């Protein structure tokens, strides 16, 4: 288990470096940054001045090296529009996005796991079909639409929850449900599929033959085997929630990373875009690492790989 973890750590570090190269390169290949920064009416002299100032005339390897060295020390440069460093901008927005995605994932799991397990145990009954119906509706409805419906119902008609801002826990309830509701169906389907397969296996019959109550058979013997792909998917879903909550953050006016990214892209605030790109990519690397370790703990056969 320790060896497995170390090996995965090394692998994650390699992927992390690759990701930083890509994050750096993507912006360089999207056009001449000096021209983009100088604006449409700038004179060639202005463009040249900006090129000098931002070091864009130096070899690309040197630019990358310097950028990486600074990034490692937490210096991601300065925003072109806010009077703040990129690191600061991201750090002030990060808690909002992390809370939102964290709550969203918890809600998705709370919906998906019980429904998936029950649907598998009551296969082809009305319970199973109802769960399938929920999954189809969840996947078919665009999440901004679902968010707007919730705002109408719970925010405006009933007045139970605040509809915009990120001041309190209550502000996060509706956006988190919207995010979780959207992620739950695919997790549920995967849980159900895994459980159906596992419940038919010989070792489940062995567990029954030992005189174990159904609860122990399902939760101890079956779930641990069925959950492995679900864990992997959870980490991907969490990554999607971190990076893809732009729409939700916009609908509910939450000042998170997604909103910041959208803002920065539309204003060509390239240091911010680069910083967010790097951060989100690193999130994926860390999440994949955590999912791999969790799965190795769950299933001893993975530890050899």
């Amino acid at each position, binding site marked *: 288990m320790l060896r497995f973890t170390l090996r995965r750590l090394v692998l994650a570090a390699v992927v992390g470096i690759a990701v930083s190269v890509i994050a750096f390169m993507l912006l360089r290949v999207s056009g001449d940054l000096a021209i983009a920064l100088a604006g449409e009416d700038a004179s060639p002299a202005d463009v040249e001045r900006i090129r000098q100032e931002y070091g864009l005339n130096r070899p690309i390897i040197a630019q990358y090296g310097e950028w990486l060295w600074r990034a490692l020390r937490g210096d991601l440069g300065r925003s072109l529009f806010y009077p703040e460093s990129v690191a600061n901008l991201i750090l002030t927005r990060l808690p909002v996005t992390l809370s939102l995605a964290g709550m969203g994932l918890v809600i998705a799991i709370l919906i998906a796991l019980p429904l998936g397990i029950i649907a598998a145990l009551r296969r082809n009954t009305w319970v199973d079909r109802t769960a399938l119906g929920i999954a189809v509706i969840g996947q078919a409805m665009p999440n901004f639409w679902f968010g707007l419906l919730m705002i109408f119902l719970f925010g405006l008609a009933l007045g139970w929850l605040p509809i915009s801002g990120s001041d309190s826990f209550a502000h996060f309830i509706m956006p988190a449900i919207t995010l979780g509701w959207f992620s739950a169906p695919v997790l549920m389907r995967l849980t159900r599929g895994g459980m159906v397969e596992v419940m038919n*296996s*010989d*070792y489940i*019959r*062995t*567990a*029954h*033959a*030992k*005189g*174990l*109550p159904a609860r*122990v058979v399902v939760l*101890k*013997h079956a779930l*641990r*085997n069925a959950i492995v792909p679900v864990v992997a998917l959870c980490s991907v879903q969490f990554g999607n929630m971190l990076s893809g909550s732009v729409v939700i953050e916009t609908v509910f006016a939450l000042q998170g990373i997604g909103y910041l990214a959208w803002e920065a892209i539309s204003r060509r605030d390239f240091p911010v875009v680069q910083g967010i790109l790097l951060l989100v990519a690193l999130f994926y690397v860390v999440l994949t690492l955590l999912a791999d370790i969790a799965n190795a703990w*769950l*299933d*001893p*056969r993975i530890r050899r790989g």
Partner: protein
Amino acid sequence: MSTPVLDVRHLAVHIPVADGVLHAVRDVSLTVAPGQTLCVVGESGCGKSLTSLAVMGLLPASARRTAERMDFAGEDLLKMTPPRLRELRGNRMAMIFQEPMTSLNPAWSIGDQLTEPFLRHGKGGRRQATDRAVQLLERVGIAAAGRRLGQYPHELSGGLRQRVMIAMALMCGPDLILADEPTTALDVTIQAEILHLLAELQREMGMGLLLVTHDLGIVARVAHRVAVMYAGEVVESGPTVAVFDNPRHPYTRGLIDCIPIPARSRPGVPLGTIPGLVPNLVGGMEGCAFRERCAFATGPCARAIPIVHGDDGHTWRCVLLERAPSLLEKST
């Protein structure tokens, strides 16, 4: 005579399938006396496995079980509540399955799976459970037993896994073990070892053993009684010596003729075979199920066959009045 540890009368198992109802087990009566071995023999698909699963209450959800009586040590299994059945399973009656490769949970260690029934049935604490697990692993012939507890099923060979399954069945000191073809999936050299081990443990611990097998060689050596099954019915049963020396059903006779005997089966001379195929058990079945393959079938075989009772509880389901002649003798 003391109360049998297992007493089954007229057990039937029906399974609804696409084109009707499969009468997989039709009329099976078995008894296992305390400390005795009953071997159930017959070819694949004759209902042997379903019979043992029916006793444990582990039939597939679609299967229907009916019986006139099904008692475990005097307790009625048919009317038993699920909690009471769970108290008995893995505790006083335990089962060893046919597929050691898939019968252990890949996600839990050997130690965890071994100690589980012991702890569940309140036989003692974790310390005692571990001690018993080590002791039983050693008893079933696993070296470095202490180290094995931390291993996982995928690190063990099939033979080792089946030994672990046997140790697991023994954890609570059961009164009855049901072993469903425990060696079918194993290498031939391991098969005999495992069967001898089971027979030895049965004697040593004084358990009742219901051993489902198609290895007649082992039956002759370990069984106190034999039940021969064909197409979902017990066609002959009785004390091992009586059945082997004086088979009364042509099918039993056929099975015995199939056993190669070293020194007596001459090279080049074919072993006995039973011509034909097992009948389809979907839908109704009248008369003797074996009559299509039997060289001695006559008119009465198409009607209901009465069970004949001989000495020593030797019974058979055949209209022939004499000892079943060898099918080999007839053909040569």
